[in-house]
């Protein structure tokens, strides 16, 4: 299955390990990701005002380009996913905005014919979890993984239709397919604080702290996420907690594809664990899931 791939701004810079693990794992799973040429910022937030055409210019360009390539568009970052998918829906339903955008950009009109998928959705669509189960060489037995969804992936549910917004299961399915155990923790769909981190660390603190503690209370070994922004907020908060709260035991936070890479039997070195703020290798080692790799 071939898709256009929209990495988003962090995947080539801050979170190379995410990008690399996506590339290496999707190749094994027969998901061909062709990076969109000249892609640009997704728009970062979906504009909620009614005369919001300007805010849609950027995502519209990406969508229109992907459509020209004739593929559905895959992205991994929750924020990009949220913006692109909602823009896609808007231009499909609102002819006026569509005409405005295409006239402004002087491109062919695009009416939302292509689909926007999160990588997890693309996997689900092609029985990816079944394939993962088949291709898993190194099942992560006994590893307790807390799946952190965040909010942008799930809401607004009527538009995104990603999963049940209150009780999503797609990560759990994924975790099961790589042989690990999913930890049910209550805060898995709460907001991490998102962009507020730019203006108010204090507000983000509360949000991220409760997520981390909630996962830690349920004795998770590892937290996985699919969003660089969530990752950033959680990791930042964890750094602070480590300093301030001696009772808190830090939990490695990984991108889900990193664990996938490990399960599919890729070299530990290629899983990008070294770039994570908290190294997951000691835990993985203690569980007997890797033998090499230093911490």
């Amino acid at each position, binding site marked *: 299955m071939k898709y256009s791939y929209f990495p988003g701004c962090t995947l080539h810079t801050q979170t190379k390990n995410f990008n690399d693990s996506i590339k290496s794992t999707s190749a094994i799973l027969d998901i061909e990701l062709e990076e969109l040429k000249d892609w640009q910022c997704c728009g970062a937030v979906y504009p909620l005002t009614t005369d919001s055409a300007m805010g849609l210019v950027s995502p519209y360009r990406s969508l229109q380009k992907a459509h020209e390539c004739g593929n559905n568009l895959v992205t991994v970052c929750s924020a990009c996913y949220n913006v692109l998918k909602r823009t896609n829906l808007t231009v499909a339903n609102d002819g006026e905005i569509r005409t405005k955008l295409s006239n402004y950009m002087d491109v062919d009109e695009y009416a939302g014919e292509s689909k926007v998928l999160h990588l997890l959705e693309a996997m689900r669509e092609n029985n990816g979890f079944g394939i993962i189960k088949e291709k898993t060489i190194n099942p992560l037995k006994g590893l307790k993984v807390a799946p952190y969804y965040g909010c942008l992936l799930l809401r607004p*549910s009527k538009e995104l239709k990603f999963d*049940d*917004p*209150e*009780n999503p299961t797609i990560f759990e399915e994924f975790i099961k397919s790589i042989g690990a155990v999913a930890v049910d923790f*209550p805060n898995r769909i709460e907001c991490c604080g998102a962009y507020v981190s730019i203006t108010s660390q204090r507000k983000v603190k509360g949000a991220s702290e409760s997520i981390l503690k909630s996962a830690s*209370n349920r004795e998770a070994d590892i937290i996985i996420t699919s969003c660089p922004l969530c990752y950033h907020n959680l990791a930042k908060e964890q750094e602070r907690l480590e300093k301030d709260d001696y009772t808190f035991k830090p939990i490695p936070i990984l991108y889900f594809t990193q664990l996938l890479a490990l399960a599919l039997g890729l070299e530990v070195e290629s899983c990008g664990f070294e770039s994570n703020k908290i190294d997951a290798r000691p835990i993985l080692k203690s569980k007997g899931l890797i033998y090499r790799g230093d911490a």
Partner: protein
Amino acid sequence: MKKIGVFVCWCGLNISSTVDVGKASEELKNYPGVFYADDYKYLCSDPGQELIKKTIIDNKLEGIVVAACSPNMHESTFRAAAEAAGLNPYRVEITNIREQTSWVHSNKEDATIKAIQLIKATVEKVKKSEDLFPQQIPLTKKVLVIGGGISGMTVALEVAEAGYPVILVEKEPQIGGNMAKLSETFPTLDCASCILTPKTAEVGRHSNITLMTNSEVVESSGYFGNFTVKIKRKPTFVDWEKCIGCMLCQEKCPKKTNSDFEHGMGKRKAISVAFPQAIPYRPIINEKECIYFKTGKCKMCVKVCPVDCIEFEQLENIVEENIGAIVVASGYELLPKEKLSEYGQGKYADVIDGMQFERIASASGPTEGVIRRPSDGKIPQSIVFIQCAGSRDNQKDRPYCSKICCMYTAKHAMLYKHQVHDGTATVFYMDIRAGGKGYEEFVQRAIEDDHVLYLRGRVARVYEEDGKLVVLGVDTLSSEQVRIEADLVVLATAVIPSEKAKVLGQTLKVGTDAYGFFNEAHPKLRPVESMTKGVFLAGCAQAPRDIPETVSQATGAAAKVITMFSKNHLVSDPQVAKVNEKICVGCLQCEPICPYKAIEPETIEVRIGHTVEKRQVATINKGLCQGCGACSVACRSGAMNLSGFSNEQILEELKALCL
């Protein structure tokens, strides 16, 4: 050309002061087809009616026009007069020259011209009118009540008391419905079974009521006054005729199973009766759980039965009944907790719904009225009640208010506080809707006397931590987020129609709304009738409601049935649609338009020369049709027409008015 008579009424000065009635009758005398025209002071008076009768007889008139007040006033009067004179009443038409002419215009000249034109148009309409005869529809004076809850029982008892036979069909093995499961009732806090048991007992022994429990209506045909229904009687595996209700079998049965009646809060035996006051007090074998049905061994019940009434080989059978009216009282259910993922999707044992709380609060329930939480039997020290769980929630596709939850939650909180004085009861609510006699006072009592904590706001999440349920919510009055650790959470889940309501609606050809509640014929004026003539509605089948309201509606439905049965036969209005089978092409594009589902395809045989041609045409069920005429517009060839307001009549009227 027909001989038509025209009568212009003065209505004292009401008409004659603005319309020159004399001129009108003079001018009409010369109008083609008019054989007789005259004016009279008060046509609706006895001498006026006599005049009409006499003129019809003397002149052998074939149609008359009465130009007078609105047809809504005296159409029936004049039609009756004409009928007495031997003229078909549907050959009488009224011209409204009072409400719509003399009273609304002041210029006499204009008003007179208009009146004359209106009368001429009516004459044209009468020229095209036909003799119509009301059909006498035979009537079976027997009612079928579907649902044996409080509404169904009320209807059954009322109708039975009036002397008509009733068939009461209930899908469960016993009657009583949801009310039988309740602990105590608001706003009086008297015990539900104390007020219900006399009713169930009376239903059980009333000579006019045939009780068919453990049964379902599977098929229905016919129309009002004459329905034929098929009722499926599911096997009980016990010969209830022979059984004496000693319940030795229940005592000795080795197999325990979850009880539907207890909503997962308690157990019952594989052969058992749901509760001690059940009517009929006869046991039934749960086929899926019984050891004998599973393994072919056991037969303990057979061994202990003193009258030898266990029949493992019993089969379901279908009973056919002819009835005249149907009352749908199929009741309600609660939205499954599994639909509420923010409250744990049913995975926490101590998150229960309102009905489950009723069971554990009920003196005859599994805990004998002691409020214990299901997981470990502990008496909860803190209970959180969440109202509007699913109701008033577009995300759950239940935007409506379930109406009873505000009251029963207050009741639950009170019952709890009466038992556990030092416990805390917290209620999360959106609004408190306590409209009803003594209702608001009841809620206030809960708040003020029993110190139930009411927090205005929604609960975002419930999860389990360290054996406690953590409730995360918001108190919108103080704008603070609230975190409560509770031992038990009670969800006031949305009231939804009975699971089988939609299918039942299709079986009975009665419409349901988007949620499955039955549609009433008119939201204000005909709330107990359905769109299908002869089918009435009672209780929560139509919309969520509490016990007093249910009983009033059920009594209303019963009154409707009794009124219907008070006549010896039914008369149908002949001003209904008719099909010209010669022209009808059978495309049935009229069918979806009919709000009463009165149009059906029929295959007719037409003899043309030597060949017999079979073809499909539309037919009208005259018992169901109410004469709106929407179908006649959908018919391109004009095969579908409306008697009394036919295409011909309207066209002629139109042409005469346009001149």
